[in-house]
């Protein structure tokens, strides 16, 4: 799923400076499942903004609403009546939802309340791990189901590199956490599967034009377009 984290409250206040009517818009899909921007979190942010305004002696009209999916026109239509009451919408959806909101309601100032960070998998409750880089040219079939694009710090296609020690990457995460070497995992998995021959294959440079590096992508399914 798409995961996101709420922006620091201070940054949200800066974005909203000078505005006295603000709708907090949550989304009930990915950001709700990653406990960042669903109905509950939207109500929390709206209440926090209300408390802060009262503390500062400012007038602020704020409430929250959430769309089933902020990234689809019909679900935005479903909240249009409420959006119409507010000149400013601060969205807790992922970047896709925020842009859809801005496009659907061009007369509104639409602002982000979250930072969309990755395509992650809930490893356990309240822990998400990055699992896909949406590179547009999947190699999982040759790597034992372990993605070297996002799980290898260098996105190597012919690993491991010299920085792999004791199954760990030489790079550590932002909180100094250890990162398993993706290519160690790939080697172990392919050995388990008896597919070691794949490790001897030299993978050609990847066609990155299929990723975002080739510019924004459009997907069209002609067979499914309305007649």
């Amino acid at each position, binding site marked *: 799923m798409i995961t996101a984290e709420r922006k*620091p*409250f*201070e940054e949200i206040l800066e974005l909203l400076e000078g505005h006295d009517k603000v709708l907090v818009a949550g989304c009930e899909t990915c950001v709700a499942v990653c406990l960042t921007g669903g109905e*509950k979190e939207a*109500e*929390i942010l709206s*209440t*926090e903004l*209300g*408390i*802060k305004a*009262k*503390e*500062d*002696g400012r007038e602020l009209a704020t409430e929250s609403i959430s769309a089933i999916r902020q990234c689809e026109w019909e679900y935005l239509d479903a909240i249009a009546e409420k959006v119409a009451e507010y000149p400013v919408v601060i969205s807790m959806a992922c970047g896709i939802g925020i842009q859809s909101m801005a496009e659907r309601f061009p007369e509104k100032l639409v602002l982000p309340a979250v930072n969309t960070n990755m395509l992650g998998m809930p490893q356990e409750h309240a822990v998400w791990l990055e699992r896909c880089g949406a590179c547009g040219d999947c190699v999982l079939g040759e790597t034992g189901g372990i993605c070297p694009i996002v799980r290898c710090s260098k996105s190597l296609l012919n690993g491991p590199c010299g920085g792999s020690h004791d199954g760990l990457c030489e790079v550590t995460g932002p909180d100094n956490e250890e990162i398993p070497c993706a290519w160690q995992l790939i080697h172990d998995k392919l050995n388990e599967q008896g597919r070691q021959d794949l490790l001897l294959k030299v993978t050609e440079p990847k066609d990155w034009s299929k990723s975002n590096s080739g510019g924004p992508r459009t997907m069209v399914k002609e067979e499914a377009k309305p007649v």
Partner: protein
Amino acid sequence: MAEETTTAAPEATDAPEAAEESIEGPKGPIDPDFEPEIIVFGCHYCAYAAADLAGSMRLNYPTNVRMVKLPCTGKLEIIHLLKALEAGADGVYAAGCLEGECHYLKGNLWARKRVEYTKTLLAEMGMDPARIEMFNLSSAEGPRFAEIANEFTERIKKLGPSPVKHGKKAAAKEGTPA
């Protein structure tokens, strides 16, 4: 399944006395006329029964505390704490069962996590995190219920009126004798 680890927060009663210079701004001397409004989210199985016992034992505790009964403090959500503060409560606390004694196993542990998290939200909003707290007690502890009510009321009296009521400046002014 691996056992969940929970970092137990220090006993709430050991919380430091309200500082004279709080996150909310400078505090004046305690206003003897200030009667804080305090909301308690109490568990049906412990705090509520303990309050009942305190009553049966004819124990005195401040009338400032108003209790909302929950089936378990695990039902307590962050939004409940925030809504109480937004509505003008000067302090809010949750009173759940002793750790390890929750009727629903871990409800009180969840409540503590939520209270601790909400404290960080309060700090972000410029409100003193000491305005909310989590306490644990058993249904047999009527005197402890009264003691917690007294302690918390004293704490909030020291902090002064909630900045939500009239804004920070007014709250600071209220704390200063005329």
